[in-house]
């Protein structure tokens, strides 16, 4: 049902030694929503994602997913529940082919939500949907930059996410490649997947997101529709300085 809250992160705080990476950041994302997360470099976006996905343990606050509390759940469990993130710098499994890379999430993360007998066939389907099926039996070391990014997304898709967090998947790509990735994300959302997009490429974020949250120096300074964010003075100051 659209409109139900899927992700509820309450007052998330994360410290590294004496440094406050996140201070009481709250985030609510509705099911089926397209959500954007932006902010200057070092504002804590990736740290927040790490806390949500479980790569890091938050020091304060609570996180709920689909009504269940996941604050203390290990990362692999959160993935099995449906929170899937892609990495800014792709982290492929280097000893495996592109196809085999997808078999891991299909075997480990997806079974909680669906069962297919033929893992390889399903992996192939996903590769075809993304457009890198021609490289299915190639080792990951033989991929171009854009293909690696697509593999990252394909692998995330193979985990059958309810919530997909795309962490700067478009950084450094050409304009056409950005549109490529954007199309894939739109299509995923049409299939019912909630998407949180972290990007620096403003036109992509503005086009894609229904709502946007802005982080600066570990705090949430604004939240609203793209138009509201564009007009927000605080946001302007965060990006351009005083």
């Amino acid at each position: 049902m659209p409109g139900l809250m899927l992700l509820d992160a309450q007052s998330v705080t994360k410290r590294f030694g004496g440094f406050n990476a996140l201070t009481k950041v709250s985030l609510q994302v509705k099911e089926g929503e397209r959500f954007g997360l932006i902010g200057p470099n070092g504002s804590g976006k990736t740290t927040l994602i790490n806390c949500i996905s479980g790569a890091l343990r938050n020091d304060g606050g609570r996180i709920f997913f689909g009504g269940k509390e996941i604050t203390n759940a290990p990362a692999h469990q959160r993935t099995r529940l449906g929170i899937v993130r892609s990495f800014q710098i792709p982290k492929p499994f280097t000893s495996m082919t592109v196809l085999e890379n997808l078999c891991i999430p299909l075997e480990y993360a997806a079974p909680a939500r669906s069962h297919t007998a033929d893992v390889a066939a399903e992996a192939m389907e996903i590769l075809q949907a993304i457009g890198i099926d021609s490289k299915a039996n190639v080792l990951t070391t033989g991929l171009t930059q854009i293909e690696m990014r697509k593999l990252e997304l394909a692998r995330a898709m193979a985990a059958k996410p309810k919530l997909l967090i795309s962490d700067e998947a478009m950084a450094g790509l050409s304009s056409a490649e950005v549109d490529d990735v954007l199309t894939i994300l739109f299509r995923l959302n049409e299939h019912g997947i909630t998407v949180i997009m972290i990007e620096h490429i403003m036109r992509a974020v503005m086009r894609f997101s229904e709502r946007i949250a802005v982080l600066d120096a570990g705090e949430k300074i604004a939240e609203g529709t793209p138009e509201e964010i564009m007009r927000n003075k605080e946001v302007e100051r965060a990006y351009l300085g005083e």
Partner: protein
Amino acid sequence: MKNKWLLALAIVIVLLGFALTRVVKNPYLYFASYVILQYIVLATAWNILGGYTGYVNFGTAAFFALGAYTSIFLIKAFAAPLPLLILAGGLVSGLLGLGIGYLTLRLRGVFFAIATLALAVVLQTMVINWQYVGGAKGINIIRPRAVLFFTSYVEFLFAVMVLLAVVAVAVAWWIEHSWIGRGLAAIRDNEEAAECMGVPTLKLKVFATTVSGFLMGVAGAPFPYYLTFVEPSSAFNLDYGVNSLAMPMIGGTTTWMGPVIGAVLLGTAQQVATVTISSALNLLIVGVVLVGFVILAPEGIVGLAKRLMRRRSA
């Protein structure tokens, strides 16, 4: 279908091993072959954690010696039969693997490696202070007389080791081709990504450590009967650690074949060399070869072979 052929092959090898004892009478050959077979088990066991999962264990000697000393304890206390010794040795070492894994695998792989080194020394110190199994002086174990259809106990031990080697390789083969093996490979390639793709990394790592420890303990269990005199400094010898690491590195770490190739090659070379050159020089060569392979040919012989085949078909 392929599985049935492999199972048949395994049975044939074991039967061959048993049959060999009818034909070959030179006791030295049995002694030497026993050592090589023992290393097949140790190298295969090491590789499950080292090659498949990417976590280096420097303390093979700890698990091996623990299996041996468990045997000694059971022999002295209950005169237990060999199958029980093997099972017990495996279980105790497996538990050690479970324990040390659970404690240290949450940390970086580097700390696990150092902890395994620490383990060997701690265990050795404990055994040295335990008089019942001989303490620092060591202990003599009487080998039983011939058993069943074997003319000597050593031949029996050889046959048993053949069986154990086949079992160890079978376990490694099964893990490698199963979903567990794929998960372990994911952990080895990129643990962070594996965890985020739903792989329960801690559970799988502890599993690998436990199985690895179990097999090493199994290899150590018949050791007292083989050598008849066991003392801590030889049972806990670092050489076991170096060899069980060098053999998979040389043979190739990504598949079950690597440790076998490495064990046969290096083991045989060492057996031949010990006769001709001093054991210290022997070890020096192992060290140099290990460093050479790690720098120049990290995928080992199997990897080199694969590369050659790819180039020829390209």
